[in-house]
């Protein structure tokens, strides 16, 4: 399992991503305080059952399409372990264009 920053795993079919934003999680820094999960206005996150090397459960994205990139999660995080940003690519006009999600 990669422990570096990673993108959310969008469960939707390729090319149909409508999220306005996404988050990036630095798994090794997380201490599972739960602030980001609680204060995300659209409830994008939940604590995962995975562990980081310190035994904490970092958050993972459960509702990626609802992410607006507002970065409230980033502002709350006491550990600088998560931040949100507005999706750089415009919403895809062509359904067939591939968007590479690295997980």
């Amino acid at each position: 399992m990669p422990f570096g920053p990673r993108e959310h795993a969008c469960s939707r079919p390729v090319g149909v991503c409508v999220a306005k934003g996404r988050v990036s999680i630095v798994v090794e820094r997380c201490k599972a305080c739960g602030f980001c999960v609680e204060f995300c206005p659209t409830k994008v996150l939940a604590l995962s059952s995975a562990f980081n090397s310190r035994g904490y459960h970092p958050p993972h994205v459960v509702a990626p399409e609802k992410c607006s990139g507002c970065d409230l999660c980033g502002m709350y995080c006491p550990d600088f372990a998560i931040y949100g940003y507005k999706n750089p690519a415009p919403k895809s006009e062509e359904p067939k264009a591939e968007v590479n999600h690295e997980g």
Partner: protein
Amino acid sequence: MSTLVNPPINPVEPFLRSDRMPHIWCPGCGIGTTVNCFARALIESKIDLKTLALVSGIGCTGRVAGYVKLDSFHTTHGRAIPFATGLKLANPKLNVVVYSGDGDLSAIGGNHLIHAARRNIDLKVICVNNLIYAMTGGQSAPTTPGHAITSTSPYGSFEPAFNLPHLVEAAGAVYVARWTTFHVRQLARSIGEVFQKKGFSFIEVISPCPTLYQRRNKLGDGLDTMKYYKEKSKTKHGTPTSEVGLTMSGEIIVGKFVDRDRPDYASLLKAQMHESLGDRYVDYDEEQGFACVDDSGCGEDSCH
């Protein structure tokens, strides 16, 4: 086939000493959150980081100096403010931030707090108030509310606590605000405001200490405390500071309480010196500072 643009790095990352992450603060501690807000305020205000100096005392909040990528000074317990005063007087071009905890600033550092406020030294003081001495294991602080259990008040605190906004206002601070670690946007905005302000500014940030204060008083963890802040805080700008005292689980009044203008120490000094000495007063030279301490580019001919 388009490939994903690499995600932008965390906007806060350039302000951090990434080689020292993860930091030592506990899960659910709010200090890191305040640092986030601070970094965002720096980004928003577009302040030249070269001019920024950050001074901390001893304690959990005192460790902030070690994690920010600025000229940062981790000084002795209670003495961040006088050190910061010296920095500012020797180099008035610096924007000097004091980032320290409630025990450090109001107990051992109390004398310095009130005098710097009295003098209206141009310092931006961020006081993270977790109502306890956290680093040393959870002893009472002057801010510990009544009946709270701490390691030095094992049967419940009975001392009246400081109302910090009231104290610093009375001492002469020109900007006094209080937020909690729940109020991230407001806190960032307040920090941005104090960078525009000349004089002694004080922002109190109520923060959880889940390991000691919350745990000993059975108040849940960091998240529970954040929810309590969300529920029980009321934003009431301009409330008289005498009315914003805290209790263990009562209402928390937040907001900007004081925003006034008084000439800062440097302006008063200059005015007095000009009045008394006229042309004989040698003011701080923007280019050269006060004197050549080393011989870089400053020969006998050039500076005198």
